[in-house]
């Protein structure tokens, strides 16, 4: 634990403040105010990529809380991410208005299904804040109910991981169905505007980027506050010796449920910020492989460090965006090899490697 504390010296606070300034001031200036010909200009491609990766980094923090600190490997966090995305996507679909292909009040996929009205669960989804709330509340509620039964039955370890895989897979199949009412195979896309601003303009894109960056920093600070609290020490104690924790009068059920639900909500928030930036959400986001990838980000960065999770998300996704352009067919092989290499040689991830290098330098 003292190692974790040492990751947050005053210098780290300065770094966090600097990151906030970069996200909120430097990037917008470099993208919008600096002319395109200048070397300091940041292209839209980079802004979108960075925005996406920041969303992934939020999921990675969520994953680190539950896996790195509490020792519960979730292989279903892609589901919470996607549910958050779908929740905000409902609002974005409603905002299209009658500008769809069929010029109807209803989204095109509903017209195609010959539906005459929105199903009940689409009620109020024309309100942005309602959908923003759903994006956090729906994953949280699902996680709470699922977690309550799983943790109460003392399901742990690989069994829990497999069940979460099955859960996200089941939801993927459900969302693939057209009559589920979420666009089936194609999901939601062709968004036109968000909060009455056209969605594809540089200004809106930058606003989404800044919002994502600040949300990421907020999530980091929240997660940090949790892990350095006594509750954080109880979580790691549950990870290391759960039965012992019970004998000291803590009920691990509520601790696990707290961090699991929070983690799901955080993933949902990330999904809600992701969808307007990439312009599409479909059931493939719930594929089991996506959830596994989230675990790999955290493993690569270093479990139980928070900053490691962010670093891992940046490294793996940065590599992915380059790899899938340069050698598209080899990406999954590379990912698998990366996972094996990290497991074998870097049990504490990149952060662990940096620690080791620093210790050697000091010795």
């Amino acid at each position, binding site marked *: *634990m*003292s190692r974790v504390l040492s990751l947050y010296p005053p210098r780290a606070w300065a770094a966090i403040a600097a990151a906030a300034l970069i996200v909120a001031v430097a990037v917008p200036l470099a993208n919008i105010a600096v002319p395109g010909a200048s070397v300091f200009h940041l292209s839209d491609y980079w802004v979108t990529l960075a925005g996406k990766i920041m969303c992934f980094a939020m999921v990675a923090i969520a994953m680190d809380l539950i896996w790195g600190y509490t020792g519960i490997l979730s292989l279903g966090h892609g589901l919470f991410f996607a549910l958050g995305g779908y929740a905000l996507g409902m609002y974005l679909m409603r905002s299209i208005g009658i500008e769809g292909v069929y010029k109807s009040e209803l989204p095109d996929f509903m017209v195609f299904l010959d539906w005459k009205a929105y199903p009940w669960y689409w009620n109020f989804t024309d309100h942005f804040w309602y959908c923003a709330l759903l994006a956090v509340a729906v994953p949280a509620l699902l996680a709470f109910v699922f977690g309550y039964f799983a943790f109460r039955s003392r399901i742990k370890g690989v069994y829990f991981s497999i069940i979460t895989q099955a859960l996200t897979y089941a939801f993927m199949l459900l969302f693939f169905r057209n009559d589920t009412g979420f666009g089936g195979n194609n999901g939601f896309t062709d968004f036109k505007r968000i909060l009455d601003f056209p969605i594809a303009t540089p200004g809106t894109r930058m606003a989404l980027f800044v919002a994502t960056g600040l949300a990421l920093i907020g999530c980091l600070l929240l997660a940090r506050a*949790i892990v350095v*609290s*006594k*509750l954080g*020490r*109880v979580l*790691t*104690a549950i990870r*290391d*010796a759960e*039965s*012992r*924790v*019970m*004998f*000291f*009068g*803590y*009920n691990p059920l*509520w*601790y696990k449920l*707290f961090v699991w639900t929070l983690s799901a909500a955080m993933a949902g928030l990330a999904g809600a910020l992701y969808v307007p930036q990439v312009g599409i959400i479909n059931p493939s986001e719930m594929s089991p492989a996506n959830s596994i990838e989230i675990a790999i980000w955290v493993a690569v960065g270093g479990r139980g460090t928070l900053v490691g999770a962010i670093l891992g998300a940046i490294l793996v996704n940065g590599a992915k965006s380059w790899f899938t352009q340069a050698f598209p067919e080899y990406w999954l092989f590379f990912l698998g090899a990366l996972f094996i290499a990290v497991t074998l040689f870097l049990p504490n991830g990149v952060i662990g490697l940096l620690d080791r290098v620093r210790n050697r330098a000091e010795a």
Partner: protein
Amino acid sequence: MTSPAATLQDPGDQSAPDYGHLLRPGLDVSHKAILYLEDITVSFDGFRALNKLTLTIDAGELRCVIGPNGAGKTTMMDVITGKTRPDSGTAYFGQTIDLTRLTEPEIAHAGIGRKFQKPTVFERHSVFENLELAMKADKRVRRTLSARLGAEDRDRIAATLERVGLATGAGRPAGLLSHGQKQWLEIGMLLMQEPQLLLLDEPVAGMTDAETERTAELFASLAGSHSLIVVEHDMDFVARIARTVTVLHEGSVLAEGPMDTVQSDPRVVEVYLGR
């Protein structure tokens, strides 16, 4: 989690049956005894681990429980701490707390602390943090999230560190401690819960002679203010600390009394040496 005390009847409740004295919330040791086990039977697949076990421990007593392997010592601890439910029989903590109806965390909260055979401390937490986690406090999630260590808490942790001999190096990860030190740390963790009853399963197993000596002193200092049940194989250690010894055999009490009386009991001799 509700406090077991909250489930007890209100003293003013007229419908309360007359037991001769009013029921008070919390641990009631007004009849001198802190733990009653009566006719406890536990079977695993037909094997009777405990067979109508009856045992009473007085408040402030230091009781040693000995017996050959399979005598039911660990199962008895499991019943007291709620890990195993008895098939029949009653288990009371004080006059009023029915242990067979409480969950493990509730029993811990009621004031029974258990030290396992194998020391299990939180290896990655510092010695200090181990004690902090064990400290008697509101253990619910929200309170734990906002918990801050007050000066009083720090003093209590420091006093406990002193008592178990770990005052130096409290910032070290507990995983770096020696075997004996881990045992002490675990006893310290139990003490932080302010238990009335301590269950100690082979506390000196694997300890050096010097460590065993220190542990005997520690237990002697704890008796009186705490009740202790010590399960131990080391007869020298038992002879040194015990005032009353209970011998378990095949799931029930074979003999009970001062060490020398028990040692000369022909049935005990037969169980340990005969056959």
